[in-house]
């Protein structure tokens, strides 16, 4: 969007619009809702990792005084799932259970304790099946039966999805290399750990269902409720309650949301279900554990000539976003480094664990960890400075990658400069036990394609202006990332008023137009653009009415809008003039990303209208005797395009660093005896704020041509470089490689022991399992200078039909 005016509110460090309500405790979260005659629901979950359900007998539970309804699998037979290709979940399972925590039955009672007691009296007879608890096991044919039906998976063993792509001539790439290196890495799974547990409240009155939920995407919950409950969408209303954190963990539709809705329909009373902390660990959809193998060819000088990836993702029991996650472990490497030939093979398997899905960085922190460390090792092999090796391979702004991803604004260089200068990386003290590490990354500002196929906008905003002021309506869900504040700022900027003067109604499917939700770092970019369009249209109406009154004709640009004035009139007067002139005032805006993907099947995962960039230097102290690592300081620079609110951006960056450090050092969704080892806030270790080092944040602005005011994402990207920077710093400190996350002290000692015995100084996976990835789809790379999108790009595909190699 073209630069038009001097910005008044955009770019200023203003407090969040929801800050006061949240810090004073008056914000109403889903669990705070108490409706008259409300019932409480508890869900009975499988105690077994893998079993067939022989029978469910709820007779005794139904007889307990205070119990108003009991549901079992028979009551909710329709399958659902977030992706159209993975409709593999049921709100309550009736045939089999696939992980400890799989929902089987539900009770609504006048008190939560009664519901809980009723669960204990439900008799479920199970026939136990062999649990599959690792990637290696899932790749083998199971002794009894696969976790999911073959009719659904159409895959051998417990495979869920396989992808295999080759872009450019890989063989030639490796032939051009002076040095080729292979490494294997493992990234352990971890969970989101939001402060707020999931919670939902449903009412059903006059054939209309209303659900308040702690969700990141009211629209997907809306679609799922309509499908599973067989209600027309206009009979279902989903409202996003004030949200206590998601990080990707509330992006799927969940069993408890469907269950309370059905219970409200059955009982005619409001029903609430708030998950316990233990249940949140089972709802999960967190970071996939991923095994990775990577092979790279480089010239003597360190230029990459070709790269080949193999990944294997442990998906847990259900599909969730997994069919996309497997792509994400292979697609975004090429938007930081210019790789002329690139092959990527990925597989996602089912195991009997809580289902994995999107967590901050969705599918990309794992390969980013591996890639950055792998390049560090190549630099050591070649005797080069790792920063310089990485730097000479950086992608250039406004280029198209080998796998057809269109890179526009790109602040990699500037981010790198900032953190190198601030940290003194080059002049760092070289002393055993102290080290610094450097890493970079990139992330999407929203996915270019919707998760279900349609041609409609990804975000829509309505603006209402009348004699009482301005209200913006948008389906976007404020999950703590600041999307409400961004909406208010954009509208305020365009209408020349203060952000506090913009009233907001968001995430209510009866009142707000559709936004695809708070995930994929898409809201500022997409809802921001939609708001910008709606606000500019409204501004025009106000200016026209004022112009008429002022007798200005022709060029209306002399009518200034700002500081609460439109031309000679106050904003309020302008609203009255415009209402008198045009009648009821409303305007709309929407945003649809252009078609950007390449000419091949599966090209929809990875393209984004813009990529954010980050660079990080991390300093640590590591004790060779204990293996304990203490992070001293993190310098991080993030190219956000434009900081619409620098306070919010810095908050996202610091939060990302915090979360990245937790993943790097301790967080682990570990299993033992077929069960989650520690589904508790005390035992699942995540850093406290006394464990948090100083963070120095640098905001880099590259003014993206497509983002609102040039803005790109900030919510996920800055997490990515933190993890590999830690492992690189550890190598700097102790000369060891920990090729595995999290880096526990025991692993550090093991690597040191290997080093002292003259073995390779590392700890990590020994090898990568044999996987049949099937035949690759071969794709000819684009012209790297081809920036075309949308119709133009598609016309080019049609012309070049013959170029397609697949």
């Amino acid at each position, binding site marked *: 969007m073209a630069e038009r005016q001097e910005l008044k509110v955009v770019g200023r460090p203003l407090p969040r619009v929801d800050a006061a309500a949240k810090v004073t405790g008056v914000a109403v979260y889903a669990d705070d809702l108490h409706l008259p005659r409300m019932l409480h629901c508890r869900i009975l*979950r499988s105690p077994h990792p893998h079993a067939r359900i022989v029978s469910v007998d709820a007779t005794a539970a139904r007889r307990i005084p205070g119990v108003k309804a009991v549901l079992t699998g028979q009551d909710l037979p329709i399958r659902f799932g977030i992706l159209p290709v993975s409709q593999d979940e049921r709100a309550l399972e009736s045939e089999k259970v696939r992980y400890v925590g799989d929902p089987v039955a539900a009770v609504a009672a006048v008190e939560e304790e009664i519901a809980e007691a009723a669960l204990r009296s439900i008799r479920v007879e199970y026939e136990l099946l062999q649990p599959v608890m690792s990637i290696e096991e899932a790749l083998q044919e199971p002794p009894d039966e696969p976790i999911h039906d073959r009719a659904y998976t159409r895959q051998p063993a417990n495979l869920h999805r396989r992808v295999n792509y080759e872009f450019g001539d890989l063989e030639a790439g490796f032939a051009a290399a002076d040095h080729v290196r292979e490494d294997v890495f493992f990234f352990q799974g971890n969970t989101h750990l939001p402060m707020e547990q999931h919670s939902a409240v449903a009412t059903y009155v006059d054939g209309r269902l209303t659900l308040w939920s702690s969700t990141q995407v009211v629209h997907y919950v809306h679609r799922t409720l309509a499908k599973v409950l067989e209600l027309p969408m206009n009979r279902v209303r989903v409202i996003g309650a004030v949200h206590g954190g998601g990080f990707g963990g509330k992006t799927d539709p969940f069993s408890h949301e469907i269950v309370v809705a059905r219970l409200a329909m059955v009982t005619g009373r409001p029903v609430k279900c708030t998950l*316990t902390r233990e249940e949140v660990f089972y709802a999960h959809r967190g970071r996939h554990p991923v095994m990775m193998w990577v092979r790279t060819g480089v010239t003597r000088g360190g230029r990459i000539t070709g790269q080949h990836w193999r990944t294997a993702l442990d998906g847990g029991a259900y599909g969730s976003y997994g069919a996309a996650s497997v792509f994400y472990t292979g697609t975004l490497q090429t938007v930081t480094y210019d790789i002329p030939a690139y092959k990527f093979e990925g597989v996602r398997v089912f195991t009997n664990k809580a289902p994995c899905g999107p967590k901050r960085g969705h599918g990309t922190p794992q390969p980013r960890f591996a890639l950055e460390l792998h390049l560090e090792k190549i630099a050591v092999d070649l005797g080069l400075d790792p920063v310089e090796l990485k730097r000479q391979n950086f992608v250039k702004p406004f280029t198209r990658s080998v796998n057809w991803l269109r890179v526009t604004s790109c602040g990699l260089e500037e981010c790198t400069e900032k953190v190198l200068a601030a940290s003194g990386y080059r002049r760092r003290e070289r002393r055993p036990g102290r080290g610094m590490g450097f890493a970079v990354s990139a992330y999407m500002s929203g996915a270019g394609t919707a998760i279900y196929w349609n041609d409609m906008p990804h975000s829509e905003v309505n603006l209402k202006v009348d004699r009482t002021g301005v209200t913006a309506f948008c389906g976007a869900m404020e999950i703590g990332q600041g999307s409400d504040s961004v909406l208010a700022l954009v509208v305020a900027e365009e209408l020349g008023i203060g952000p506090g003067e913009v009233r907001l109604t968001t995430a209510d499917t009866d009142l707000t137009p559709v936004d695809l939700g708070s995930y994929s770092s898409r809201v500022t970019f997409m809802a921001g653009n939609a708001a910008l369009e709606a606000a500019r249209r409204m501004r025009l109406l106000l200016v026209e009415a004022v112009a008429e009154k002022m007798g200005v004709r022709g060029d209306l640009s002399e009518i200034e809008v700002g500081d609460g004035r439109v031309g000679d009139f106050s904003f309020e007067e302008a609203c009255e003039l415009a209402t008198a002139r045009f009648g009821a005032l409303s305007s709309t805006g929407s945003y649809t990303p252009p078609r950007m993907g390449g000419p091949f099947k599966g090209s929809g995962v990875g393209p984004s209208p813009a990529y954010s960039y980050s660079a990080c230097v991390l300093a640590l102290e590591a004790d060779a005797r204990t293996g304990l690592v203490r992070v001293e300081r993190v310098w991080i620079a993030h190219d956000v395009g434009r900081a619409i609110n620098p306070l919010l951006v810095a908050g996202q960056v610091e939060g990302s660093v915090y979360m990245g450090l937790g993943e790097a050092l301790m967080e682990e969704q570990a299993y033992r005896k077929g069960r989650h080892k520690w589904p508790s806030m005390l035992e699942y270790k995540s850093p406290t704020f006394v464990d948090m080092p100083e963070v120095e944040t640098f905001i880099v602005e590259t003014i993206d041509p497509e983002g609102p005011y040039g803005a790109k994402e900030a919510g996920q990207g800055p997490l990515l470089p933190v993890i590999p920077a830690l492992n690189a710093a550890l190598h700097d400190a102790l000369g060891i490689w920990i090729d595995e996350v999290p880096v526990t002290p025991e692993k550090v000692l093991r690597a040191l022991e290997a080093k002292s015995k003259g073995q390779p100084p590392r700890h990590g996976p020994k090898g990568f399992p044999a996987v049949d990835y099937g035949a690759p789809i071969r794709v000819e790379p684009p012209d790297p200078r081809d920036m075309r999108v949308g119709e133009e790009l598609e016309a080019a595909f049609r012309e070049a039909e013959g170029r397609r190699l697949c």
Partner: protein
Amino acid sequence: MLVAGGTDLYPKLKRRQFDPDTLIGLSGLEELRRVTGDARSGLRLGALVTLAEAAEHSALVQAHPGYAEAAGLVSSPPLRNVGTIGGNLCVDTRCNYYDMTYEWRESVGFCLKKDGDICLVAPGSPRCWAISSSDTAPVAIALGATVTLVGPEGERELPVSAPYRDDGIEYLAKRPFEVLVSLRLPPTDGVRTAYAKLRRRGSIDFPIAGAGVALKTDGHCVEWARLVMSGVGSHPVEAPAAGEFLAGKQLTAEVIAAAAELAAKPAKPLDNADLNHFWRKRMVRVLVEQALERAATQDQGVLGRG
């Protein structure tokens, strides 16, 4: 069951690790909130003194800094504001097969300590190996402190170590209904104390190993030393061999290392707490060294540092 601050008990009730018919709250007993005495005569701490009060009590910090430090290292600030020193000495033993919800324990199979008949950590074992996890017990025992118990059969004063038993289930040989009313710490009299704690994070976490030290020197050499460890067995584990070894020696780096080696021997961590138990076993030595070093450097002028 008795309850003081409830910081240990209430979460356990929620997870159904206990299902008592009656809870008897001690918080109304005002006289158990007092600290009396001083460094010269010894201090008496009422059982309801909170951990936060103990950690900051100036006479206590002066008299026995190691004890105050241990109290200040328990859990997190909000829990220290409520949790009591008496409750800390009586704190339940821990095991990550046991400190879980009823549903989780039912799913994995109940164990000996609650509702079941086998030990999941050591399935062949007839006993429970749940871990003694009090941060304040080691220094209190090393100091030779005493506790006063009051029950229907009267009052008795015992060394702090006396009520502990090497059993994850019956870890306290206290008679039912006996209330721990106070902890008496001896006069300072030149005794130095220190506590070192190992935990994953800088706050909240229980000790996965802890080392408490009390020692007295004659200006050059150690007259006597006592070392007690937390988190390495079902009771606070004393290391008498290390204490005997230290007697008559200067606290040089070599001596400290050798003592720590001896002290670590009886530590037997199992795979039922945070982090790998082999690593934990190796860390015990490091912790004991840290504690000894800290006790030694409380007055650097006197002690030889090699």
